[in-house]
């Protein structure tokens, strides 16, 4: 294994700088993806005629193309239609558009399952006050979706690595950069991958713990 500890110490600051960017872009990306995803989910749920079928196609499309392909698509084509964003913003946009579709699907599933339960409970309790239903149903949707949302967060975190190839200066970009400068490729990628693991694993454990608590 071509490993030099001194070299690792040398590149660590650069990698950590990238890590911060990765974390920020993941969180912001997830945030906007959620906002967008809720909008899409609600529109599909209500069923506004033309918009719904368009959004259905959008969701199906996102779920069937690779993220890296979509990222390059955005990077190459958005400037040509006048959308000029600096890399960080572009990265957030791409993450939000791509994962927003997945989140919309997550919410769709939760809405379906919560409604079924609530309809049964409502029948038994003879609840016909829609306001109460709204207060009971909506927060439940979030709780039911939580494990899937956390999985989504982890996927977003991992996929953010591809953004390094569209000039976003996140963790992978720094790894690539250091490797290119020093011609020592192994240590940067090893440390970068390790950092991804060190951050994602606790989150995954948290997600599983939450899933267990609420099953």
């Amino acid at each position, binding site marked *: *294994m*071509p490993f030099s500890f001194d070299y690792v110490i040398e590149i660590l600051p650069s990698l950590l700088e990238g890590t911060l960017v990765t974390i920020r872009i993941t969180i912001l990306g997830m945030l906007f993806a959620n906002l967008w995803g809720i909008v899409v989910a609600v529109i599909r749920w209500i069923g506004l005629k033309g918009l719904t079928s368009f959004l259905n196609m959008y969701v*199906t*499309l996102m*779920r*069937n*193309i*690779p993220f*890296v*392909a*979509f990222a*390059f*698509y955005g990077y*190459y*084509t958005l400037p*040509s*239609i006048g959308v000029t964003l600096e890399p960080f913003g572009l990265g957030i946009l791409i993450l939000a558009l791509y994962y927003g579709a997945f989140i919309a699907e997550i919410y769709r599933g939760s809405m379906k399952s919560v409604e079924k339960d609530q309809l049964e409970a409502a029948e038994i309790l003879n609840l016909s006050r829609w306001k109460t239903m709204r207060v009971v149903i909506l927060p439940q949707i979030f709780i039911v979706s939580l494990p899937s949302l956390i999985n989504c967060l*982890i996927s977003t975190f*991992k*996929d953010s*690595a*591809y953004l390094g*190839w569209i000039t976003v200066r996140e963790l*992978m970009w720094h*790894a690539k950069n250091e490797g290119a400068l020093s011609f020592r*490729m*192994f240590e940067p*990628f*090893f440390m*970068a*991958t390790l950092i*991804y*693991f060190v951050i*994602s*694993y606790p989150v*995954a454990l948290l997600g599983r713990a939450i899933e267990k608590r609420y099953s």
Partner: protein
Amino acid sequence: MNDMSMETLRLWMSYLLPGISETLRATLVAGCLFPILGIFVCYLRLSGRALLRAAGTAYVEFLRGTPLVGQLFLAYYVLPFWGIKLSAPIVGAITLAFNSSAYAAEAFRAGIESIPREQWEAGRILNLSRAFIFLRIILPQAVPIFLPVMGNELLTLLRATAALSLLGVRELLFRARDLSSATYQPFPIMTIVLLLYFLMSYPASEFVRYIERRVKYLSA
């Protein structure tokens, strides 16, 4: 876009289509490998020996908790040091196989563990060997459960081959980027490529859903 003739389109496609065959080749190789690796790792995870279980768990957690792109570059740059000289497409396919095998192992495990332990007990009482119970009683009941998951994982793998372009493998996305920069027409080319990925992925995913429904009907 109207000055784009059929001739240009055919020219582009003649450059892109070999990329599809490269994509499918990687999918095929990795697609055959990953279930086998997955069964092996699942066996580790379900073993009675703590050391084997820990190894299996480490394998699954690491491969699922790190980006595929990171694994690809790690494999590509570490293998030469171990004296293994492999080309990028092969390293890529093998890494894809390892990556997907982690998800496969989990799918197998979930399938097997979903079979009630009373099935094992009924088998033991009839003096059936552990191997027989596993192969002829548990597995046939678990297959309908994990088959759709494996199908979906294969499709995920097909889409993941796009990452190989970053290693220089001349598959579809690589050729798309290449062509885009050569012709200065990224918009139509990238749109076509997204469409191509969609056409490879969507019908197959509907097929998997169909299988899932048929199989649910069987175990009712």
